[in-house]
């Protein structure tokens, strides 16, 4: 099991007020679960990854940068339990979690 962590600045969209943490996805082969929770991070956004697959740091970083660029979230912790999901699945799960967290 590999544990990775990234933090990004530059988000402008906070979660909708009063949102409780949400969970999307499932830990099954080629899939992952994302737990998204509002947190006061002073405008930052944090990604914590537990994964069964090593040596994909660059791919994770690329997926998170793309997600930040598209959705611009702030003050959220995305905790990810990954079971060898391909990058587009990670991307979709993040979008799904953010759609729930940002919906008013």
């Amino acid at each position, binding site marked *: 099991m590999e544990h990775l962590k990234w933090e990004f600045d530059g988000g402008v969209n906070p979660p909708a007020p009063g949102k409780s943490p949400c969970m999307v996805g499932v830990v099954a082969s*080629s899939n992952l679960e994302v737990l998204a929770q509002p947190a006061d991070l002073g405008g930052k956004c944090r990604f914590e990854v537990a994964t069964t697959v090593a040596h994909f740091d660059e791919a994770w970083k690329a997926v998170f940068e*793309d997600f930040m660029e598209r959705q611009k979230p702030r003050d959220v912790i995305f905790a990810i339990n990954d079971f060898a999901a*391909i990058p587009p699945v990670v991307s*979709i799960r993040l*979008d799904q979690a953010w759609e729930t967290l940002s919906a008013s």
Partner: protein
Amino acid sequence: MHMALPSASKHEKLSSVEKGFGPGKVIPAARTVEFLETVIRSGDRIIHEGDNQKQGDFLIEQLARMNPSKIHDLELCASCLGLPEHLDLFENGLASRVNFAYAGPVGARLAEMVFDGKVKIGAIHTYVELYARYFAELIPDVVCLVAIEADRDGNLYTGGNTEETPALIEAATFRGAIVVVQVNKIVDKVSRVDIPGEWVDFVVESPKPFHLEALFTKDPAMIDETRILMAMMTMKGIYAKYLPKVLNHGVGFNTAAIELLLPTYGVELGLKGKACTHWALNPHPTMIPAIKTGFVEAIACIGGEVGMERFVSAHPEIFPLGRDGNLRSNRFFGQITGHFADMFVGATLQIDPLGNSSTVTASRLVGFGGAPNFGAENRSRRHLSPAFLKAGKEAHGHEAMPQGRKLVVQIVETFQAANKPTFLERLEAWDAMEKAGFEIPPVMIYGDDVSHIVTEEGIANLLLCRSFEEREQAVRGVAGFTPVGLKRDHKAVENLRDRGIIQRAEDLGIRKSDASRDRLAALSIHDLVRWSGGLYNPPSRFRNW
């Protein structure tokens, strides 16, 4: 009065059989090898019937057991090299050259044997191309076919899986080739005459029924949210836009997802009655809900599908049936029907930045099957089809001569596994070309035949691209986190997006959380059985209840 006589060589072969086996068309199964050695000469061109569904397994086993000191240097022609015995013919020194269309199950071994020089490939064809060559210059000497029943006069019942039998026998029987057929049963009266006995020289009752692959059965349980998202984008961004009436779908899960979304999302989009009414398609089990909800008016079948027999027979308004009430399929006609459809939707293993795609990789020579003819611009003259005109306007609207255009859509996930990108700077077909000594790379669908590429990242409309540079950025712009996708020119891609050449899910008003399995009309094979009113009878490996 003039009597047509068989060619000298056929005449001689027929008399040798009569001498050794007595009169009549029925050959005892136990003497098949001896019989084949009587009708086959070294250097003969042998067509063996077998496609991605039915396979003449008994005859290819018997062919592989012939004596190579008597018979060698055969040229084997087969649509699908689907069984190990196809390659045993080469391993055993009986054959030296092969022409085929598809080699899925033995693709890896074939690649090794070709790279080792044990097999010389004439060419990797499309189905239609291969059939056409049988009529032009690959005229056969001996043709080995498959049927369900034969009578003693050689009349054949080929039934729902008629597939390529009519094309192969037509190319053989009027050219003096010997026609041998393996049948599941020799009967007094065949269920219906699919092939007249006059065209058949010999029949052999095989010890067990011929091999039949349930290739078109896709379990709805395997359809995940990524596929549903891609299906929804395709339906909203392409089906609802062009309203294609005549369609062909590939065999994959992406198109199975669309089939299962027709009765739900398709209805929401207003497609019912306006699009997807006529199909060139096998009886896909995943089409059952769309058929039961009245989406479909007619389906022309390329082949049959295991377990769908009773459902098909119960729907004479949809499927082509014989007087006996059973399906009649035809691969040659079905391929042509699909070629002239409004739209093809399929998938592939690899795509390059210009949209060229191939399923041939450096280690597997799998060939292509039906995709190249289905998935090719057809230069049609069907000026009345609105989908064809609309696509043509996008592709040729700026040119002096107005033309229509077929829609050729590739749906792919950007990765097949964590380290296996679908998008590559250079197709492995190039490596296969170099290793196998081909003149040109074995490309399945050329980039300029493709109208749209759909990935989980969005839709690229290649019809609207006005230069190779634009097409390249359109492909890179939907290639996700693959090396091809990461090398995109972000500014150029944003420009393409502003012009509607690239569309993301959000541009189409689709939320990622909309892509949920609840939308599928059936979630399992068992659901499909229920939809069919119990008429669909899936093979046991798909039953888990």
